[in-house]
């Protein structure tokens, strides 16, 4: 009895201590507000440390090699440090970046001033400097051009290989780029969606394979990258940055990886990070319903599709080399079920994407009739496959000439939405005689190694539609990464259609939007005829921020191609 009383007393004391400890400890567990100065109402405070989480973490930072395949390499690091010539605003429109003194001028063939070679002239701002104070000049642009062309494993040479010469004048502040032919997607060179310019004096040479993998060593953006490792990326303001509109409010930004969706959500709910940019996942709207969280949704420029790689390096004899199999697969996948069961519970407004590699919110390039006929149709699947010589085996899976209709389906592990899609669709495929085996891997391995090397058969991932409709970088015959070309190029799906390639070349040298629209639509039709991919939906972008921690236009960039973190120079702490 005495021991029991003692035990009860001990438990009571322990409970009291816990309550006291909880009540007395500071709610803000980090000193991220330290140094913030008071400011009049309506003004944003200066100082402090901004903490953000990244859903995927890049393994390397080089924007010229296949490291650039990982969107989060740009969103978490490169966008804040590296300058561009042309950039995208929050609505996806091209505009001159602060590096430029104004709009560039175009002349020559294909323009209103239509004589001579297609020529582009940029005026670099006299204030535009690198973080070491040296001027940004044409030399940097020329070196960048050579780097994209000559780096081993360059992510893309498309467009750069259409430049005949680049000349500098006016102390290097005027950059004249002469093309071998009109090039419509000029805005994505040296900028745009995922390209930048680099400081020539800080790179080892024109082959940048070994440069910029774990750090940059220079900056031309609002921030300087102080450090990068597996646990965090730390930025501080670039004191040499000349654009006062983009001078950061905070003293430091730290971006940390939270690659597990639940942990990421719990971290922002707990206030351990102040903002996240998660991919939409089933059920998370309910998880983040609390007063101090602001959720922003917007149709982005990203779309998710199921890609059927042709003759991938991992399996040259893939069943998807057969166009009939690709066609049958498209009719076997129940996109309606994906939408209603996985996407609509949180985003009821999302519709099926029927136009392939464009999105209806960017220009008029998207032809929503292309995949409109693709509805779940088991009878059509049967007739296509059996008409092609496939027959069901004893295990219920189609086979032909000893080869079973079986493939590996890869998504990035930990992505709740994609794994839910696999879980939903794989049994349905099985019922129709098609065997899909999950072969998932972490995001940086998938996007920075396996996809560039075409080491998968079927993948589900996001691509981003540029404001420019050119698809040369992702679908041209000479952009297929192979061991022979050191895995250079982004046509990971391996589609090579000579007619489509010719149309891509023609559309790239056709600045006239009306003529170009017709060419793009023809490419879309060929894409559909060859059953290269199965588009699913335009993914809504989601930003979640702690409204009691951060201030400023924190959700402005939710629809942007640069992610919600695209304007963190404008974020401040409360």
């Amino acid at each position, binding site marked *: 009895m005495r021991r029991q009383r003692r035990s009860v007393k001990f438990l009571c004391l322990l409970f009291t201590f816990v309550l006291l400890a909880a009540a007395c400890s500071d709610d803000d567990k980090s000193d991220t507000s330290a140094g913030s100065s008071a400011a009049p109402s309506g003004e944003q405070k200066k100082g402090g440390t901004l903490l953000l989480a990244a859903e995927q973490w890049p393994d390397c930072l080089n924007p010229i090699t296949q490291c650039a395949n990982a969107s989060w390499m740009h969103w978490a690091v490169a966008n804040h440090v590296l300058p561009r010539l042309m950039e995208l605003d929050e609505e996806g429109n091209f505009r001159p970046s602060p590096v430029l003194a104004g709009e560039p001028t175009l002349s020559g063939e294909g323009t209103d001033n239509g004589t001579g070679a297609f020529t582009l002239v940029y005026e670099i701002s006299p204030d535009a400097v690198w973080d070491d104070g040296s001027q940004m000049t044409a030399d940097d642009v020329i070196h960048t051009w050579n780097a994209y062309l000559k780096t081993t494993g360059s992510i893309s040479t498309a467009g750069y290989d259409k430049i005949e010469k680049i000349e500098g004048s006016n102390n290097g502040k005027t950059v004249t780029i002469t093309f071998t032919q009109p090039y419509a997607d000029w805005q994505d060179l040296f900028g745009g969606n995922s390209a930048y310019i680099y400081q020539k004096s800080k790179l080892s040479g024109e082959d940048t394979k070994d440069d910029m993998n774990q750090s940059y060593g220079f900056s031309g953006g609002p921030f300087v990258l102080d450090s990068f490792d597996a646990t965090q990326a730390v930025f501080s303001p670039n004191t040499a940055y000349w654009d006062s509109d983009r001078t950061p409010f905070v003293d430091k930004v730290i971006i940390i990886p939270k690659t597990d969706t639940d942990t990421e959500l719990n971290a922002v709910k707990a206030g351990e990070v102040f903002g996240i940019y998660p991919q939409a996942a089933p059920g998370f709207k309910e998880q983040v319903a609390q007063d101090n969280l602001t959720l922003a949704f917007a149709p982005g420029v990203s779309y998710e599709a199921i890609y059927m790689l042709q003759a991938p390096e991992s399996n040259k004899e893939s069943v998807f080399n057969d166009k009939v199999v690709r066609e049958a697969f498209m009719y076997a996948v129940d996109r309606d079920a994906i939408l209603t069961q996985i996407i609509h519970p949180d985003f009821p407004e999302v519709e099926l994407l029927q136009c392939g590699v464009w999105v209806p919110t960017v220009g008029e390039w998207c032809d929503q009739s292309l995949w409109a006929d693709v509805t779940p149709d088991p009878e059509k699947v049967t007739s296509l496959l059996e008409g092609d010589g496939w027959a069901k085996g004893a295990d219920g899976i189609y086979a032909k000439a000893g080869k079973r209709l079986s493939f590996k389906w890869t998504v990035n592990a930990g992505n709740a939405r994609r794994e839910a899609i696999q879980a939903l669709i794989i049994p349905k495929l099985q019922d129709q005689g098609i065997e899909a085996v999950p072969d998932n891997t972490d995001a940086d391995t998938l996007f920075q190694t396996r996809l560039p*090397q075409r080491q998968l058969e079927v993948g589900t991932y996001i691509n981003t539609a540029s404001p420019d409709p050119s698809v040369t970088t992702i679908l041209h015959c000479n952009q297929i990464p192979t061991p022979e070309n050191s895995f250079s190029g982004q046509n990971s799906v391996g589609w090579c259609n000579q007619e489509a390639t010719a149309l891509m070349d023609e559309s790239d040298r056709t600045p006239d939007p009306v003529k170009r629209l017709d060419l793009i639509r023809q490419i879309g039709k060929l894409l559909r005829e060859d059953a290269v991919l199965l588009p699913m939906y335009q993914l809504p972008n989601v930003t979640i921020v702690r409204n009691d921690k951060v201030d400023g236009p924190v959700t402005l960039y939710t629809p942007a191609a640069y992610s919600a973190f695209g304007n963190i120079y404008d974020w401040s702490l409360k």
Partner: protein
Amino acid sequence: MVLYAVRRLLWSIPVILIASILVFVAVRSTTNPAAQRCPTCRAEDQQRLVKELNLDEPATSQYVTWLGNFAQGDFGKTLRNTEVWPDLRDSMIVTLQLGALAWIITISFGLTIGVISAIKQYSWFDSLATGVSFFGLSIPPFFFGLMLQIILVLKFRDWFGTTPFFTSGVNNSTSSGLGYDRLVHLLLPAFTVAVQGIAVYSRYMRSSMLDVLNSDYLRTARAKGISERRVIVRHALRNALIPVVTYSAIDIGALIGGLVVTEQIFQIPGMGVYFLQAFRDGEYVKILPWMMIVVLSVILFNLIADLLYGILDPRIRLD
């Protein structure tokens, strides 16, 4: 005792050598170092790398070279051309901290619960402890970890306005090193690791104590008038601890590489996450020293367990 320890250490050498051969063969046969070293390289560059990494030499020669370098602490360079040891060292330190904290929690709670359960056999406490033990044994660590995040961080914050716990990481980003900040960050993952350990150790301790409590020498001690508390603490506990302590020494060795799930859930950059990342990237230069460190720790702690057994039980002659 000293002779025994020396003899065991000498016997460990062939065990380590055999383990190193198995590790080397397993890792080399499942990775393609030249291809992973430079996946975007041209064929001639890959050939150059083959020579640089001595991959064109016979397997035995590669093994001997690797073992010699390993013994001298030269673990080579990663695919990104960075030294292996700094990251491996940092991962090891984090896992050791997490493992140590988890072990302290496991031993403290597990032994206490086991002793009380044995003393109060068939009481309500014993029944409750048994039920909770089964719960602890059956609950998956990843589920338990997420539940702890929700309850002790989010719900706690809702109820009390604050919480001493964190959902992930080893430090606040504005802090570094080992201190109070790291301690409170590691508490939740340590509890996650400890939950199954507490269940196991409480059952072990209970069983061991029950064996001892009914011994003749304890009956003699009570007959001599020694207080029950002294009987339990000075006489019963020490003997009951023998199997538990030796088991826990082996357990510690296994902790070095065995916290993968917890580290993943709580985003802790420890040995488990290190191995997963290296395995996915095919970084054989990282996998090899990792596996050897795990092997060495298991061997070392097995030795410690044997030595402890001899220290705790004088009836056992280590010779």
